[in-house]
C-alpha cells in the first residue's frame, strides 16, 4: 500500500484516501470537432504502459478532492515526486536515461 504525499494537503497519506485516474497530461483537444475519429480514439483510449517512470493522475478522493500528478516507477512502485495539476514533472524518463 502506497504512502502518497498530497501536494495540496502537504502531507503523506495512506493510499486508501486516493484514487488512481490513469495516465497524466492527457489534455482534452482544444477543438474536438477538428479531430478525426482516429485522433479522438487515440485521445480516448490509447495510453502508455512504460516499464519505468510513468506520470499518473491521482485524486485525493477521501481528502481534499484535489487532482494531482505522480511520477512513479512502475518497476518498483517508487514515487519519485508528486506535483500540482498545472505543474510539469521535474523527473522524466528522458532525464533518467
Amino acid at each position: 500500500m502506497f504512502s502518497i504525499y498530497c501536494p495540496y494537503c502537504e502531507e503523506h497519506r495512506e493510499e486508501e484516501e486516493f484514487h488512481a485516474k490513469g495516465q497524466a497530461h492527457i489534455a482534452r483537444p482544444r477543438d474536438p470537432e477538428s479531430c478525426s475519429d482516429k485522433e479522438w480514439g487515440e485521445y480516448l483510449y490509447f495510453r502508455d504502459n512504460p516499464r519505468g517512470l510513468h506520470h499518473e493522475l491521482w485524486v485525493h478522493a477521501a481528502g481534499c478532492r484535489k487532482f494531482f500528478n505522480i511520477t512513479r516507477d512502475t518497476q518498483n512502485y517508487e514515487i519519485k515526486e508528486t506535483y500540482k495539476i498545472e505543474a510539469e514533472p521535474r523527473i522524466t524518463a528522458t532525464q533518467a536515461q
Partner: protein
Amino acid sequence: MTQTNRLPSGGRLDRNRPVTFKYNGTTYSGFEGDTLASALLANGVDVVARSFKYSRPRGIVAAGADEPNAVLQLGATEATQVPNVRATQQELFDGLVAASTNGWPSTDNDLMSYIGKVGGRMMPPGFYYKTFMYPQSLWDTYEKFIRKAAGIGRSPTENDPDIYDHMNHHADVVVVGGGPAGLSAALAAGRAGAQVILADEQAEFGGMLLHSNELINDAPATEWVAAVVAELQTMDNVMLLPRSTVNGYHDHNFVTIHERRTDHLADLAPRGQVRQRMHRIRAGWVVLATGAIERPLVYANNDVPGCMLASAVSTYIKRYAVVPGNELVLMTTNDQGYTAAFDWQDAGRKVVAIVDTRAEPTGACVAQAQQRGLKVIKGSAVIEVKGSKRVSGVLVASIDAAGDRVTGNVQQLACDTVASAGGWSPAVHLACHTGSRPEWREDIQAFVPGKTVQRQLTAGAVHGSYTLRACLEEGIQQGMLAATNAGFGEQIAGQIPVPTVTETAAGPVMTLFHVPHTKPTSRAPKQFVDYQTDVTAAGIEVATREGYESIEHVKRYTAMGFGTDQGKLGNINGMAIAAKSLNKTIPETGTTIFRPNYTPITFGAIAGRHCKELYDPKRYTAMHRWHLAQGAKFEDVGQWKRPWYFPKPGESMQDSLNRECQAVRTSAGILDASTLGKIDIQGRDAREFLGRVYSNAWAKLAVGKCRYGLMCGEDGMVFDDGVTACLAENHFIMTTTTGGAAGVLEWLELYHQTEWPELEVYFNTVTDQWATMTISGPNSRKLLAELTDDIDLSGDSFKFMDWKEGTVAGVPARVFRISFTGELSFEVNVQANYGMYVWERVFEVGAKYNLTPYGTETMHILRAEKGFIIAGQDTDGSVTPIDLGMSWCVANNKPFSYIGKRGMAREDCLKENRKQLVGLKTRDPEVVIPEGAHAVENPNQAAPVPMLGHVTSSYYSACLGHSIAMGFIRGGHDRMGETVYYPQPDGSVIEAEICSPIFLDPKGERQNV
C-alpha cells in the same frame, strides 16, 4: 502415555505446569513451554503426516516456521477449527486438540501408501502443468485422487466465535526478528529515542540464543537476552510484539504483522479478548534481522521419520528437553553441525557417528568431537536411509571432494535418527515481497537480500553474517543507523559496546546441495527436495531434461515451493540441482522469489473487525425508522438501504406493487427520494460548466426553473442523469442517480481541475443534508396545500419544472414540481433533521387522500409506464442519447463542444441499425419478459442465431392491465409494430411487439394539471 523422550531436567519448560492434549484422538501429556511439535516428539510420535503425492509417512523435521510436514488441523470444536498450523509454532496448552490432515484411514496406517506407488506414476513431475494440457475429462480422475489422499486441512463449517482486530501504527524503526541481531538493533534504536517496534514470531525473544551453548559477556546467552528484553520493556518508545510474525513487507515501507494473542492459551480466546491482531505499520526504517534457515541435505529416503535438521535437534534438546531418538547419525558440511551431536551426547544418548562430507575438516569442533570420543567419518556422506515409519539405519559411503559421486565402499550403520546440516539459507523472504530479487553470494554460497528501494537495512544471518559476534555487532550498527536515518541517534553514536563473545576457530564449509548415490539419481531411492509437494531431485532433473530452463518454469512444472511453507527448506537445494542439471551456475539460473504471507495467516486476522455490521457502512435516510415500523422491505442501492415496497398483511409482492401503483395514479403516493445524489454548484461560471458536462442546453435556464440533463462520457455514452435546478443566477443544485453520486462529483472536479480551471465554479455534496420526499398523484396538490401557506401551488403560479422556496409543515423547504411518475408531483426537500417530522405531518393530512408510501419497485414501474430511463439499468455505457431516443436532450448548437458531443459523432455512433431503446408489448398481456432476455428475429432459426438486443426493464403494469418492457432492438426506432421473439431457457418463446416506450399518457397531460 509417558514422555519417553523427555529429559529429566533442562529446557525452558515450566515443569510445575503439566498439560494434557489430544492428537488424533489419543491423549498425551507435555509441559507449559512446549510446542505441539516438541510435545509430540517427547511422546515418541514419529509419523505426523502422509506425503502429498506418494503418501509416504512423514515426521517432524524442523523446529520453526520452516517445518514442512507437521502441518496439523487444530480445534476442539467445529467452530474453532484451524487448518495449516505448523506444530512447531503452536504452543501447547491444556486441552489442545490436534489432528493430522492427510492419510486415510489414518496417518499411521495409510491405505493410500500402497496406492501411492501407483499414484507416483500417475502424478509424475509436471503433473499440474500436464493436467491442464490434457483433456478436461482426465481431471476428474486426478482430482478425486488428490482430494482423498492429500487433504491439506479444512475450514470450519461454523462461524468463528473469536474476535480479531487491526491496529495501525507509525513507527520510526521496525525490527523484524528478536534474535541476537534483532535484539541489538532494537536496543540501539530504542536507546536513540526512536519509536521502535520489535516483532518476533516466537513466544520468547532470543531466537537461536534460546538453545545456544555460547556465552555472551562470559555468561549464558539467555542472561544477555533477559537483560536486553528487560531494558526494552522499560522504554516507552519501544513496543515488543512476541508471537507476532511479520508476514508482509509491502511498498513504501508498509509492514503487516500477524500477532497471535491468545492462541497459546486455549482453543477459544478468553471472553472479551482478541484472538489475533493484524498490525499495519508504516515504518520509517525497517531492520530485517530474520536470521537464516538451515538447509537439509538431499539424500535417498531423506524423508523417513527420524530425518531432521541438525539445528532442530539441538533446539528440541536444549530448549524443550526432548531428545527425538536414541541413536544419532549426524551428517554435516560445516562445523556448526557438530553442535547437534554434542548436545545429543550431553543428553545421555548415543551418537553413532558424525559423517562429515569434508575430507579434511579443520575446525576446532573436530578436535572436540575426538575429545568426546565421538566417531567422525570424514569425506563421506549418508547416501541412503533405511526404514519406513522410522529410520532404522543409514548407508554411509565416501564421496569425492566436489560431492558429485560416491567413491568408496558402502557401510551400513544402525541408528534411529539422522540429523543433517547442509549450511544456511538467509531468510530473504520479506526482502523479496516488494519485488527485490535476492543476490547470490559466492563466499557463503547463499542468496542474500538484493537491492531495494525500500528504506530497509539487514543485520545478522539474513545478511549472511553467521557468527554470534557479527550478529551482535551488525544489530547495534544497523539499529543505530536506522534510528539516525529516522532522525534520531546522533547522541548515542558509538555508545553501545558490542558484548564480548568467545569465538571458536571455524573451518571452511563444503557446498553440497545433492548427496550422490551409487545409482544415478533417476534410479536411486527418492531424494526429496521439497517435502510438502513431494518434489525429488530426480523430478527436477526430469524438468530440465524436458526443456524447462527458467527456474520459474521448473518451479511450476514440479510444484516445488508451492506448498504452504513456500519451500522454505527445499527451494535453494532445488535451484542448485536445477542449475547443475542445466550446467549453469546458481546465479545464472537465478532464484524464485517469495510473496506475502511468510506463513499462512487466518482469515479472521485479515478481516479484523470488518465483518458483519462493520463490513461495509450502511446509509439510512432520515425517515428510515418510519419505513422499518411500516414493515418495508428494503433494497440495497450502493450503500443505501432504500424501501423496496411496503407490503400489507397477506399481500404478495405483486399485490403490494399493484396497490402502490394504483394509489399514485388515482390519488397520492409518497416516495423517500433522499438517496438521490445532490451536488451544490456555485460560482460565476456554474451555468457555463453545466452546459459543458450535460448534453443539453443550460444557458437560458431561469432562476426558479428545473431541467433534466443527460451526462455522457467523452465517448458519447450516457453515464448518469438527473434534474438540476437554478437556485440563483450563480447557484444550482444538481441531482444524480443514487449510485452515481460520488462518481459524478469526482467527474465534475476532474474536468474543472484538469481541463477548465479558469472557470469559477465550486462543487459540494449535499446529499446527506437534505431529506427528500416525492408526493405524487392527482391529489398531491390538494394534500400539499394543507401543509403550506406561503407557497402558491396553483398551476398558473407553480408550473411544471418550477421550484419554489417556502415552508412545508412549518419547516423551511425547497419544493420542486418535477415528475418521475408522469403524475402531478411535488418533490419536497427539507433539512435532513426535519425529515421525519415533515414526513409524519404529511401522513397526518394524507390519510384522507389514501396517501400511500411506495418503494423503489413501484417507482420503477411507474417510470417505465412513462418510458423514463434509469441510468445504469437502461444504459450500460454503450448507448448514446440518440440510441435512447432522447435526441431532444442533445443540443449540438451549443458554442462549447460539450463532453460527449465529439464521441457521439464517431462513425460507429452514426451507423444506422444501432441497438436502440424501444418499448415492448407482449402478445400475451400477462407474460412479463425476464429482464436480460435476448430478442431474435426468428425463433426457429438454426444456431447461431443473431441477437437483436436485450430487455432492460420489464414489469407488470396494474394500471395498464398488461406487462410492459423496455429494451434494445437493432434499428428498433424504425421497427414500430414489428414482432420479435424472446426464447426462454425452458424452450418456450415470448412474442412481443415493438412499440413506443411511452405506454401511458404520451402527451404528458397528467403531470401538467
